[in-house]
């Protein structure tokens, strides 16, 4: 069951919106409609957000992303189309029914925090519960807990303007969390913060999300932020979603020139991880003969082998060249990997070890068993955005794993 569903959503501002919409459906472009005096902000958007997902909507100013997020909780009424939050059809509700959904199911964090300057931090955090009519003691307890969650212990009695921007936005986040809504809308929530604080807030959001598992729709104009936070990203342009996918999918296949131009600025080293560039490790026992090892190497079409002990734990790595030069058993040729890393390690952290040695980087699981090897050249290829030679499709990978285990 999807947490949030948007179907065929249109929002047209200005005169004669219905007329403009009919023309859009007939295939008119946004520019043509604009010439007639109406402004199409959201054009035929359909998407579904799964529970527990961080869904990022990314676009430049004027792309319609802020309009889109405001239709999700009914702050703006769409010209056509429907929005469902769980079972509730937001677009069919008004007045009390709509307020009820906003009070219980969907909350929001704002770009400029939108705190009440005349109230203390804890009263701000308790706002959602106060609106719902919950008694003071209960709501202050919930607000205090939410403030602790975002790291604002001891600030409860201050006024918002006594806090820095980052702390103010934490209050905004605490206010949204205290409402206990499952769906959290974040409208450029970190865009007004300076870069260091922004990064800190992103980390904190990911940490909270790992703990709370909310469904988050996050609006941003910063693609790096989108890539860092998003489980999936929708890229908007001129009111339409032009690309929708996971960060890796979008990076690997931008789809069109517009998205590609964006991607030029993305820090790929933070999006891709070791698991994206590794090849599944073909293993060889430390006691094997070099000839047998070479055979295994050729059989897998790999550039190196992971050498393991009797328990399957990584001892070291050997490349084809090492094996050819070796005499005796494999142990003589084995050398330490450039680094041992986990599958989730970002490329940024692989750069230094990969550059320091021509040995492969070994990707190991929690028990120290090898699950993949990374060719240093594959790291560079992935950063350059080329379809790297080191990468293998998921099917092949599974096959190879089977092979290496057997």
């Amino acid at each position, binding site marked *: 069951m999807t947490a949030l569903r948007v179907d065929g959503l249109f929002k047209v501002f200005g005169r004669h919106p219905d007329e403009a919409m009919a023309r859009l459906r007939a295939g008119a472009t946004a520019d043509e409609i604009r010439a007639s005096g109406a402004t199409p902000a959201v054009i035929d958007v359909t998407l579904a957000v799964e529970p527990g997902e961080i869904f990022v909507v990314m676009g430049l100013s004027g792309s319609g992303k802020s309009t889109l997020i405001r239709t999700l909780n009914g702050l703006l009424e769409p010209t056509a189309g429907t929005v469902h939050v769980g079972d509730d059809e937001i677009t069919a509700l008004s007045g009390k029914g709509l*307020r009820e959904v906003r009070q219980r199911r969907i909350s929001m964090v704002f770009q400029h925090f939108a705190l009440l300057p005349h109230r203390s931090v804890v009263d701000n955090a308790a706002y959602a519960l106060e609106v719902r009519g919950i008694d003071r003691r209960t709501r202050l307890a919930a607000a205090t807990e939410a403030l602790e969650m975002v790291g604002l*212990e*001891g*600030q409860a009695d*201050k006024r918002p303007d006594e806090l*820095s921007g980052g702390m*103010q936005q934490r209050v905004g986040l605490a206010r949204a969390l205290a409402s206990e809504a499952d769906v959290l809308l974040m409208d450029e929530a970190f865009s007004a*913060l*300076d870069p260091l604080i922004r990064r800190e807030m992103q980390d904190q959001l990911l940490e909270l999300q790992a703990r709370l598992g909310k469904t988050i729709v996050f609006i941003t104009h910063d693609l790096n932020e989108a890539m860092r936070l998003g489980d999936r990203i929708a890229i908007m342009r001129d009111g339409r979603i032009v690309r929708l996918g996971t960060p890796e999918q979008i990076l690997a296949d931008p789809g069109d020139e517009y998205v590609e131009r964006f991607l030029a600025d993305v820090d790929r080293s933070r999006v891709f991880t070791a698991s994206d560039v590794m090849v599944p490790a073909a293993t060889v026992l430390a006691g094997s003969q070099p000839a047998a090892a070479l055979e295994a190497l050729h059989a897998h079409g790999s550039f190196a082998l992971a050498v393991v002990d009797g328990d399957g734990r990584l001892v070291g790595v050997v490349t084809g060249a090492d094996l050819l030069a070796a005499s005796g058993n494999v142990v003589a040729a084995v050398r330490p990997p450039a680094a041992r890393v986990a599958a989730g390690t970002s490329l940024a952290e692989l750069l230094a070890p990969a550059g320091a040695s021509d040995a492969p980087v070994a990707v190991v699981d929690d028990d120290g068993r090898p699950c993949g090897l990374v060719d240093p050249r594959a790291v560079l290829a992935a950063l350059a955005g080329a379809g790297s030679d080191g990468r293998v499709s998921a099917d092949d990978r599974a096959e190879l794993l089977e092979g290496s285990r057997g």
Partner: protein
Amino acid sequence: MAEPTAVLAAEESSLPRVPVGEWVDTAFDWLKDNFDPVFDAVATGTETAVEGVTDALLFLPPLLFAAILALLAVFVRSVVFAIGSLVGLLLIQSMELWEPAMQTLALVLVATLIAIVVAIPVGIAAAKSSRVSGLVRPVLDLMQTMPAFVYLIPAVTFFSIGLVPGVITTIIFALPPGVRLTELGIRQVDRETVEAGHAFGSSPWQILRGIELPLARPTIMAGVNQVIMLALSMAVIAGFIGAPGLGQIVVTSISRLNIGLGFEAGLSVVILAIFLDRLTASFGERPVEGGLRSRLMRRRTARTVGAPVAAEDATPGSRPTAGAGV
């Protein structure tokens, strides 16, 4: 009725004469004929209110009352303001103008109260609806720019001379800034903050009470301040139609060409004006540093905060320029 056009040599004009004056006369005659009981009721109510307030203001001996006002001044603003107020009020008493000053003050207080009770809801309605705003604006323009003495004529027709027409004209004259600044204040409330109210499911009333009015308070209080100042200036003009107070002294001194008396009455008006202005202005501002109110408030927060502040994230420069904290 005299023909006002006579002055302008109307026979040369090619435009037909539009008898605005006659229409107004007819309208007021009709009102007078049909709503006399209403006007009588208004008159009685107003008179009772102003006289009640006057009696209350004159109930305490002047010296004691001046001391109480000075205490109020120290509470809302500062010791300097309190000393200034005390000196000013004692000067009024020593000029033997205490009673007319209190009569004027009572008139101003009642007129201001009524004006605010009308102005704030109208201002809110104008802020919420552009149509209401469009309707109200020309009326306010008329009220503000129509020469003050012109109000006096119909006021006297309806209420004869004395206190009541004075109060009514004062209300009409003082009302507009209350409406205008309330509308402005509410329209200026940060859009995102109001949106936040909606996003958390607040009702329109909760948004008005909890967000718009508190955030618009400084502007609304500036409006209230302006209402009081205008009421005070009109209360003096109302002396011409027999409203009791400092205005009457001014009128008397004009008719007798008594410069000294006129100056004393005028000075008393100025003292009252400054006192009321500073007093009401401080309700719109944040508490002044060193004032008793700010010290009391600080002590209250200091007691509840207690815990040391986490240094992390306390970068002062990271506040956005267009923040919500207005």
